[in-house]
């Protein structure tokens, strides 16, 4: 089934359109971050700043503890990603390989729990964490992020586990490998892209999360980046646009860098040729 040249051109055109759609806000953010105040309010905005400046970055760093906030975000996001994956991986394996009624009920609950709005759980959660003395602490925030990311992480990983052919595990068993050896030597390496993708999902959702961080962290030295970014906003939606754009640009960089580094691990292909079909 060969794709015609016209169809291929259409596909590339659609892909280009999609890329432009995705890239536009980010490119505009970069442009804004380097513009002086007078250019921000121009009736005819330009992509390239006429008089580029680093003043917005200087002001952002002067006014808000961005580095401290970035470190807090990094701790919370990495913690959430690691813990969520460590917990979700064995759970997902069991749910994928043993299709019992309990596993089905678990999967159903996972789907339902995704529909819960934040505001529904925030006050009970706040009270529980307060009693555990985990308000205004990054471990408390990590706990919340793990609980929040776990259902979706589980859901993702179940799919990845199911994609690993059972024949490979059976072949390992035939060769004399025990259950644990099979999991460690055969299944885990094949699951690696899925685990990385799931960890990345947990990381990014924790990195970007705002509401829980806002409510659970009180002191400035504990606050994460999304919370600190709101300090550039005034009443009625007024914003200190230049410094906000500069800080937001810096806040997107870690996610981009991490994604760039590990994106190769996410792409499929590891399973290619594993099984004759």
């Amino acid at each position, binding site marked *: 089934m060969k794709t015609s040249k016209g169809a291929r051109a259409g596909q590339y055109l659609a892909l280009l359109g999609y890329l432009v759609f995705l890239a536009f806000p980010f490119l505009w953010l970069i442009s804004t971050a380097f513009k002086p105040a*007078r250019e921000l*309010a121009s*009736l005819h905005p330009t992509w390239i700043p006429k008089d580029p400046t680093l003043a917005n970055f200087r002001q952002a760093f002067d006014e808000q503890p961005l580095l401290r906030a970035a470190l807090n975000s990094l701790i919370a996001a990495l913690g959430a990603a690691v813990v969520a994956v460590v917990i979700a991986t064995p759970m997902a394996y069991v749910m994928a390989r043993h299709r019992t009624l309990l596993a089905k009920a678990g999967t159903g609950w996972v789907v339902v729990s995704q529909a819960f709005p934040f505001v529904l759980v925030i006050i009970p959660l*706040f009270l529980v964490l*307060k009693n555990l003395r985990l308000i205004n602490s990054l471990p408390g925030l990590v706990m919340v992020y793990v609980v929040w990311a776990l259902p979706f992480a589980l859901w993702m990983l179940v799919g990845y586990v199911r994609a690993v052919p059972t024949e490979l595990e059976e072949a390992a068993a035939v060769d004399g490998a025990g259950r644990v050896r099979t999991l460690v030597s055969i299944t885990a390496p094949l699951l690696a892209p899925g685990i990385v993708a799931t960890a990345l999902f947990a990381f990014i959702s924790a990195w970007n999360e705002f*509401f829980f961080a806002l409510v659970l962290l009180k*002191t400035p030295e504990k606050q994460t980046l999304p919370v600190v970014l709101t300090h550039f906003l005034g*009443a*009625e*939606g007024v914003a200190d646009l230049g410094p906000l754009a500069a800080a937001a640009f810096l806040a997107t960089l870690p996610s981009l860098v991490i994604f760039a580094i590990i994106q190769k691990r996410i792409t499929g292909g590891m399973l290619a040729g594993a099984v004759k079909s």
Partner: protein
Amino acid sequence: MRTRLLAVLAVFGLLLAACTGGSGGRSGGVITLHFQSLAWQQESVAANKELVKEWNAAHPDVKVEYVQGSWDSVHDQLLTSFEGGEAPDIIHDASDDLADFAYGGYLADLRELLPERLKSDIPQHSWETATFGGGIYGVPFLQEPRVLIANAKWLRQSGVRIPTPRKPWTWDEFRTIAKQLTGDGKYGVAWPLREPVSATLNLSLSTGGQMFHRGEDGKVTVRFDAADEVVPRTVRDEVNADQSASGATLGMGGSDTLPGFFGGKYAMVPLGFSYRQQIAQQAPKGFDWQVLPAPAGADGLTQGVSPQTLSIAEDSPHKKEAAEFIDFLLQPKNMVRLALGDWMLPTGTEALKDPALHTAKDDWATGTALAAHLRSAPAQSVRGYPEWKDKVATPAFQEYYSGAIDLGELHQRLVRDGNLVLARYQR
């Protein structure tokens, strides 16, 4: 099996370690107060932090910790903090956000806590903005009138009469002048009405519009009388009949109109007084702008405001010290510093006399002359107002201003649907 047991033990250990009670706020004889500030502009944050520093230097036994909050999310954050018993001792907010917290018992009644000096310094009409059910739940300290920011050169060249606080335009005159200034694809005025309700209600006080009327039984009902119609009708006619106001800005926020204002598309933009800070910062070199009073009606220059407030949490174990800190923060000279930092007007009568607020630079004097005309926004003590605003009034005003519905339909929706909403809160 062992792992499971360890997990159970860990949870059990955590539960054992858990104990109730917030941070005591006192250690080694030193009281610690948390002051959550919503200051966000560079000068304003600096002024607040300096004042906290000065307080701490002078009061070694009562330490104030500055906590940065955000206007964008303050309501949700405070609500959760109150519910969890972890609210800051001193709370910076706005009077239109206080009603539910005051009625909910989260805020301390300040009547017995505040010194006489502060009580008498702030006028009664300002105290009314933070009075709920007979108690005072916040100290109103900064406020801003809505003004017309105008392209001064354009106005001069057109030859129209320039209004002053002593001789403002009437609403009819304003409409006529907006028409005069319109032409060549340019508009006399741009109304940024993404949030149409507070702007309409607050400006309607100048024409005697009240909208909310409290009966003898204490219950509030919505009415939409002739006095309430003047401002909405003016805006709608400017947009649709005269085409002297741009329809494109109806869905914009104030900041969104500035590029068009600087670019010479609009001669005037009705904005809050503090927008001058953005204008001073962003206007092209040589752009000549000036502040004009909003048009006056039957009640002169009166308009509604929701001042910024300082409150004390009911759960705070150190209310007396918190009140002392507020008193320090709002000493006349300090109130002026806060006002200048936020480009707003202080509520205090002593602070309002400060020469720094009567300069021609950035038109401080024009705004200060309007201070005496500012009153409590009509709706802020009405329970159910937020729902009425979001579900009934905002869509109704938006449709009316865009020309989609007429005055009769607007009237019907504001009153009929509005009273159904309010009734639920007043059973």
